[in-house]
């Protein structure tokens, strides 16, 4: 479905030094430097897969996404999406894909969303019967109801996102690119969006590519993740494996029937949290069995669970490592 080989994307940027004097100098002489936003990436994505692009800000995720959608031309490399070369943006290609940007909207601001739906029907040349069917389905799944009749500007952010998704799916794209789709939404709306996107993938078999900083999005939607850092692909595989690789340790969550001394806990492993309700220990995978039996034997345990570390932490550790490497390189 998607095939990327040796993708490079370089930008020439104008250096803007701080300060008034420097700014004045830059009026007359400008300095440029080349930045490799994407620096040699290869991957394949099969039909119907759901893949998350992860990486710190400025890592090259969105650039890659835009190259795949045909908005940016690669500096070099080979990209094919659904048998098309995205950069040519042929109708046949455009009718098969859709890009949803959490921070930008395609809905017409001062008109009801129904007008945008109608516009997209015409633009994507969707047959009337199919349009009606799709719209009914979307209306039901997203519970659009009367939202579609109100001017977009009067909708809340969450309502707008639901309509945005509906507008994006009118032509039933086979490849859906989502860039930060849940940004700014409240928790229940995030869940709604995620469930809806997952269901769309299941029902239509569409391929899904997502970038997000929200790890709940990734955990719910993407069995496979591709981690991009400084333009390079640093990991491509299952999310579960990524987690064990970065943080091989487990968390033992304990609840006690009476209060326990912090010192007693520290004897078992690293204490992550210790308060009245519950205590969390961080222990290596190999030591889990021993720690659990010791805790059960020596402490008044009322409840015990073993968990993976939270995804947010895994990611921040991953990015912190790359940040540390960057600083080290800059210093040397």
């Amino acid at each position, binding site marked *: 479905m998607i095939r990327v080989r040796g993708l490079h994307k370089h930008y020439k940027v104008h250096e*803007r030094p701080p300060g*008034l004097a420097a*700014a*004045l100098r*830059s*009026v007359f002489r400008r300095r440029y430097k080349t930045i490799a936003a994407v620096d040699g990436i290869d991957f394949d994505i099969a039909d119907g897969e759901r893949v998350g692009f992860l990486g710190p800000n400025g890592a090259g995720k969105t650039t890659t996404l835009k190259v795949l959608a045909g908005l940016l031309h690669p500096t070099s490399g080979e990209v094919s999406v659904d048998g098309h070369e995205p950069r040519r943006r042929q109708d046949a290609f455009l009718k098969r894909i859709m890009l949803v940007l959490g921070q930008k909207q395609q809905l017409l*601001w*001062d008109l009801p969303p129904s007008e945008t739906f109608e516009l997209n029907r015409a633009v994507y040349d969707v047959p009337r019967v199919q349009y009606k069917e799709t719209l009914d389905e979307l209306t039901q799944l997203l519970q659009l109801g009367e939202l579609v009749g109100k001017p977009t*500007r*009067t*909708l*809340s*952010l969450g309502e*707008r996102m639901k309509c945005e998704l509906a507008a994006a799916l009118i032509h039933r794209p086979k490849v859906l690119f989502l860039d930060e789709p849940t940004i700014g939404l409240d928790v229940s709306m995030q869940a709604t969006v995620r469930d809806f996107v997952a269901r769309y993938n299941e029902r239509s078999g569409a391929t899904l590519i997502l970038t997000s900083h929200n790890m709940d999005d990734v955990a719910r939607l993407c069995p496979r993740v591709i981690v991009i850092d400084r333009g390079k692909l640093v990991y491509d595989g299952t999310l579960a494996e990524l987690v064990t690789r970065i943080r091989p340790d487990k968390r033992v969550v304990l609840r006690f029937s009476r209060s326990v001394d912090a010192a007693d806990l520290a004897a078992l492993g690293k204490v992550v949290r210790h308060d009245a309700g519950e205590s969390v220990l961080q222990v290596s995978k190999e030591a889990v069995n021993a720690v659990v039996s010791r805790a059960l034997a020596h402490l008044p345990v009322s409840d015990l669970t073993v968990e993976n570390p939270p995804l947010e932490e895994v990611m921040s550790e991953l990015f912190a490592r790359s940040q540390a490497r960057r600083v080290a390189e800059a210093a040397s």
Partner: protein
Amino acid sequence: MRYLNLLGSQLRASLLLAMQYRADFLLDGLVEVLWMATAIVPLFVVFQARPTVAGWRFGEALIVMGWFTFLQGVLEGAINPSLASVVEHIRKGTLDFVLIKPADAQFLVSTARFLPWRAINVGTAMVIFAWGFRLLGRAPARRDVAVAAVTTVVAVVVLYSLWILTVSAAFYVVRIDNLSFFFNAIFDAARWPISVFRGAVRFVFTFVVPLALMTTYPAQALLGTLPATTLLAAIAGAALAFTVARVVWNASIARYTSAGG
């Protein structure tokens, strides 16, 4: 004092921004020269046919044009850029950020952005003044220059107040991004002495949109033909315009609800 500091830092930020856009600098200069030239073309055509129009000689009409050029610099360099940013704020609902700052909102939005390149207009205006007085064969009297300085303040205050009123309209209408276009279009009529207009148009340009206060009166002041009573009336008018603008602005802010919220 705090407001002076604020003004200073806003000016500095605008200056920094202006440096980034060198293409703008060249274009601004070019546009300005061409604007002036085109503004003078109709003047030429008119005075080719007649020695005086509505009691104004060519040299005298040039003085009005000079004031127009000067004020246009003020409008486009110090007033319109901020206007554009307010309209943008209202559209995006980000005016809240301005409103929660511990300083007067009117002051903040009025000083949000400057285009320092427009200072070119001041130079251009001086050239036009010099040309006009050369044609008239004399120099302005020192006293007249002093009076003209007063009328300059009046003119800028009136222009500014009109601008605040225009911006206030943006609170009431769904989307007006061509407000500055509208404002410029009206202002364009100020390049002619008020006496070329008759009847209702003249009334409007004297009392409703007081273009007369902005260019004709300063020109008359510089030429030494402005009656003292007119000067006093103009000062009073400017004070009134400023007060009205302030009241309307406050009322608009009170009514404001942020978009999409």
